[in-house]
């Protein structure tokens, strides 16, 4: 019997680098409030390796975001584009988490990767499109123009980022873990931004009515 060979590895001290690094990241900010993770972990790995872990998270998720972003705009099937866009949103949610914005990360997964992309996928499958570009040349001139324009825009962006980078703070703010919680966001939203919040609700109502009117079966 081969079943007896399956051995479950216990989650030991050397087997949970993510939790340990979280405790390290939190310990950078003395004012943090979440003690769930820090209470259960011990820091047994020297800090030098843990800094590279957060860098590793950034590199992996940003590479995922860039690659899936390029795949979104290069796949000929809209369905494949939509699926890669969901992956892109998930990678961005990981990046938001690495910036301690927990509420926005959850909203990103629920609203963007959940609601909006389900709507897009629903429309794609409803329309049941064929592949596009079957009558075009293999590399139209607008692709070249678009890529050149995009390169120019990227150049301007990067130049501006580098030119302003002397005034950037070098690390996360001290209260970065606090301002990302849902209580902090709700406090700001219902105190200082209550009027824009109501405006957003009216906007969403108008969008619902507009969508129903536009997608109705027949125009009068």
């Amino acid at each position: 019997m081969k079943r007896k060979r399956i051995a479950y590895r216990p989650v030991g001290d050397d087997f949970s680098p993510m939790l340990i690094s979280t405790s390290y990241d939190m310990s950078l900010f003395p004012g943090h409030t979440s003690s769930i993770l820090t209470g259960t972990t011990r820091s047994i790995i020297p800090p030098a390796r843990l800094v590279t872990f957060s860098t590793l998270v950034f590199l992996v998720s940003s590479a995922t975001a860039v690659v899936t972003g390029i795949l979104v705009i290069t796949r000929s099937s809209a369905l494949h584009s939509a699926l890669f866009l969901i992956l892109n949103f998930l990678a961005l949610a990981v990046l938001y988490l690495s910036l301690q914005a927990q509420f926005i990360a959850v909203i990103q997964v629920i609203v963007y990767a959940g609601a909006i992309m389900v709507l897009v996928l629903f429309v794609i499958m409803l329309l049941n499109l064929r592949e596009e570009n079957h009558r075009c040349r293999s590399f139209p001139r607008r692709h070249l123009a678009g890529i050149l324009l995009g390169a120019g825009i990227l150049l301007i962006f990067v130049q501006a980022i580098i030119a302003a980078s002397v005034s950037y703070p070098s690390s996360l703010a001290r209260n970065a873990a606090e301002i990302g919680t849902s209580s902090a966001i709700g406090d700001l939203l219902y105190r200082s931004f209550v009027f824009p919040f109501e405006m957003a609700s009216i906007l969403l109502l108008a969008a619902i009515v507009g969508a129903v009117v536009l997608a109705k079966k027949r125009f009068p």
Partner: protein
Amino acid sequence: MPSLTWYLTLSAVLFTTGVVGVLTRRNALIIFMSIELMLNAVNLTFIAFSAFLGDGRGQIVVFFVMAVAAAEAAVGLAIVIALFRNRRTVDINDVNVLKW
């Protein structure tokens, strides 16, 4: 810890990807998705500045951007459906009534 410059550069790359998508693709749905890509790149910039500067208002802006994106998704997809119903296409080269 990655610095703010890394996040901003990543955001610039993602935004440029969205711009190139809008400029090169002719499928209305893929253009729509490229716009979502650009909105998310801007959201990443807001979150990065919010976390590095310690100001929660950046995340509020992201919240509103998401609300606007949801409204835009509903209306935009309804327009795409209405377009497909009337013209049997979502290729924006075929929708050139306003072209000069």
